[in-house]
């Protein structure tokens, strides 16, 4: 069902009024309706959040507002897009000529895209890209243009704006680039700002900064903001009004409080229940499944925890992994990237160790070093009493039976040319564990364990959804009965409701099969939900380590604290990141050859809670 009645929240005229919008895409397999019968308004000075899972039509809606839908092959079939312009009165974007629309793009409506890496052109400097729109829409020239560009950079709080003008995008960090993108969108002082997943590709501390910036610009300029996101926590932090989209339709509309505290639609409730909320685990001893209805919502009673044995599965001692950088005419080693520096921790049977940190902190390198997918420089990795670093190639191959990996992207971690059955049975074949009939039984059994129908055996990966693919990847990882599974951002690429189901599956499998997980993630809320123990990584080192409650309820290290404070909480009453935040940039992990690293010293706050002493 759809809502055609729009609840006006603000007085005055809306900047845009969208009525009964319908967008279709022509594909090989017929017409696909991307957006159906959608109506809503955006008023000056308010943030409207359009929230939904992938494929819900939220991005198409925003592209239609810029009349950019046709670049993706879409077509507005019916509806009205009434834009209140500053100069020429009301404009219906649906049946206006291209020239008027191009004149409105950038001037009346500014847009921020998801990927700051790709939404800036790598071959032009910042000044050129900033002033492009100004040249088109204003009469400014020469020095005036430059002055305006500098003013814009100051407005988005970029340090040393004069120096930035001559720089190219690759010379700037991701957060800085997104600020440039925002400055470009703001160049002609648009009345409506569309932000399409503007922080999804960014680290959490940078996300907090960008969100705060958008908020400030909104109130300074009395702009309307249409904020598109899949992240309910960001919605809770940003929105005045919320529109929930599902399969091309707006299923619910309301104030942010209404949506979060009094959701009416089943879908909205489901979406909210699937979001892990940071801090919701306070006072809970063991990981707890999320409250989502799945077909087989197994009850997890932490059998493992009750059996509580302290059998050590994995122990890392001073693990160091460095990647050489070659340079000069002779391609000599000139420096090292210190990806993992003196990391030590241990994981017990049936336990989840959550490894969190921002991109580039070395958490993935750490996971891959354990499997020796990359060769560690020094240290000890002891798995079930065997030191993996002393093994030769063939010994390593058989040792890998005991440790398996789940990768982030379920679309590229499965071979597109292999059927599900062959994917799952591949490890059995490689290790020569079972004969053919045993293999068939085992694979069928596993498919049941990961809650997929047996008919999937003959399918190819492209015939499955992201969540189903990730279940196959999980089945493949546990088919050889490993004692350790390394899950590297295993749920990051999934939609929130699917993410919840996969997390629950991982927890119930752990309960049943006594697997230990090394759970690598950037998502603090997810880590809080699934982990027994947590390690926080920063610039290659573990800065703090302890039980889940020690880390989340009593963080000691300044980095852990700032990380926790930057995480948006999915609760509009706890708006924690709206102030003017500024976090320290992460230092470069590149050091010259022969650089002496100090062995880190840890202080034990209480039993098992270690904090790096600096």
């Amino acid at each position, binding site marked *: 069902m759809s809502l055609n009645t729009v609840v006006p929240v603000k007085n005055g005229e809306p900047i845009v009024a969208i009525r009964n919008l319908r967008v279709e895409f022509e594909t090989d397999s017929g017409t696909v309706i991307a957006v159906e019968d959608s109506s809503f308004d955006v008023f000056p000075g308010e943030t409207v959040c359009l929230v939904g899972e992938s494929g819900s039509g939220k991005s198409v809606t925003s592209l239609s507002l810029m009349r950019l839908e046709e670049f993706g092959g879409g077509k507005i079939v019916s509806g009205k897009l009434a834009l209140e312009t500053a100069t020429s009165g009301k404009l219906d974007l649906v049946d206006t000529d291209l020239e008027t629309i191009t004149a409105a793009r950038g001037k009346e409506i500014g847009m921020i895209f998801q990927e700051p890496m790709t939404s800036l052109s790598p071959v032009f400097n910042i000044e050129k890209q900033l002033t492009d729109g100004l040249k088109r829409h204003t009469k400014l020239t020469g020095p005036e243009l430059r002055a305006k560009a500098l003013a814009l950079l100051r407005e988005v709080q970029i340090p040393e704006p004069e120096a930035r003008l001559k720089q190219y995008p690759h010379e700037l960090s991701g957060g800085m680039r997104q600020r440039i993108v925002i400055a470009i969108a703001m160049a002609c002082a648009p009345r409506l700002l569309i932000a399409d997943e503007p922080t999804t590709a960014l680290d959490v501390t940078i996300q907090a900064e960008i969100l705060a910036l958008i908020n400030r610009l909104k109130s300074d300029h009395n702009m309307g903001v249409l904020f598109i996101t899949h992240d309910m926590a960001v919605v809770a932090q940003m929105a005045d009004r919320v529109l929930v989209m599902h399969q091309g339709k707006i299923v619910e509309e309301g104030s942010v409080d209404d949506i979060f505290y009094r959701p009416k639609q089943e879908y909205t409730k489901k979406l909210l229940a699937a979001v892990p909320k940071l801090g919701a685990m306070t006072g809970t001893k063991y990981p707890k499944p999320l409250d989502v209805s799945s077909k087989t919502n197994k009850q997890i009673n932490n059998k493992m925890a009750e059996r509580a044995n302290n059998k050590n599965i994995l122990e890392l001692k001073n693990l160091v992994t460095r990647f050489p950088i070659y340079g000069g005419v002779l391609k000599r080693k000139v420096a090292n990237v210190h990806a993992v520096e003196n990391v030590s921790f241990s994981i017990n049977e049936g336990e989840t160790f959550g490894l969190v940190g921002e991109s580039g902190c070395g958490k993935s390198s750490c996971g891959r070093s354990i499997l020796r997918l990359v060769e560690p420089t020094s240290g000890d990795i002891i798995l079930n009493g065997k030191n993996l670093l002393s093994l030769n190639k063939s010994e390593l191959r058989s040792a890998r039976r005991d*440790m*398996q990996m789940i990768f982030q992207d379920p679309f*590229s971690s499965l*071979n597109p*040319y292999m059927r599900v059955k062959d994917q799952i049975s591949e490890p059995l074949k490689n290790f020569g564990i079972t004969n053919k009939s045993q293999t068939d039984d085992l694979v069928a059994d596993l498919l049941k364990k990961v809650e997929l129908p047996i008919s999937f055996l003959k399918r190819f990966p492209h015939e499955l959804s992201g969540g189903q693919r990730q279940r196959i990847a999980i089945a*493949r990882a546990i088919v050889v009965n490993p004692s350790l599974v390394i899950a590297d951002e295993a749920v990051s690429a999934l939609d929130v409701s699917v993410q919840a189901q996969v997390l629950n599956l991982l927890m119930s499998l752990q309960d049943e099969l006594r697997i230990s997980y090394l759970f690598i993630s950037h998502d603090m809320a997810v880590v809080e939900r699934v982990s027994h123990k947590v390690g926080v990584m920063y610039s290659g080192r573990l800065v703090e380590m302890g039980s889940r409650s020690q880390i989340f309820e009593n963080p000691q290290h300044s980095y852990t604290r700032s990380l926790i404070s930057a995480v948006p909480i999915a609760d509009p009453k706890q708006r924690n990141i709206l102030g003017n935040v500024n976090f320290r940039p992460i230092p470069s992990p590149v050091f010259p050859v022969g650089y002496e690293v100090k062995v880190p010293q840890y202080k034990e706050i209480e039993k098992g809670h270690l904090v790096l002493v600096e």
Partner: protein
Amino acid sequence: MTFIKKFINFKGLIGTSLVVLAVGTAIIAPLVIPLDYATNMDMRARLSPPTLDHIFGTDQLGRDLFYRVMLGARTSISIAVSAVLLSLIIGLPMGLISGFFRGTVDNILMRLVDTLLSFPALLLALTISAVLGPNFINTILAIGIAFTPYLARLIRGEALRVSQMPYVEAARSAGANNIRIIVGHILPNITPVIIVQFTISLAFAILAEAGLSFLGLGTQPPEASWGLMIQASRDYLDRAPWTALVPGIAVAVTVLGLNMFGDVLRDVLDPRSKT
């Protein structure tokens, strides 16, 4: 069944028919047409346009172009197919090994390929053919070796790309050894590229054979091959354009058919494509 279904579309049917026509001719024509029909000269009917006696016309020596193009199919197609297969047999392992193992092996193999690439393919084929002496087998060898570096380069690039995919890493952590990864994971994922390159190379090989024959280093007159016919026609283009058109159309139809067939074959082998 689904394989056959995927062939049934415009491109698939046309492409398959053309390939069947060309290959069929190459196989059947020499069995039903006496071989000397291609070399019999009829001096009174030199450069005759298409008539009832000579439906495709005749060349400068009065030889019937219909019989020549029919009997020339075997020479042209068998040389092209064998040469490209040869280049695949050498280039595929080279490319796979280079792309997968990288490092020193890659450096050595690719410098070798670079050396070969620095000569124009035809010049290389010419040299090989000149050194070995012109005959059927040596023509195949010459074209096959000349085509190898292009194929090896392409396959190396693809193997390099695929070997960095997460599913290859997943296979490695699932205990797969190098052979299993190359054969089971990398090869299937680069077949589409190989097929496309294979069909395009066939077209170029037919033309390369023509070039060699022209210079007297490929098929020897009076034997017929399409390339030889095209080259022989050059002096009479203004007076007797059919002498070029007949073999030209034969080459064009075969190449077009091969390309369409290759395209469809690629789709058929890709599980992601719809039926």
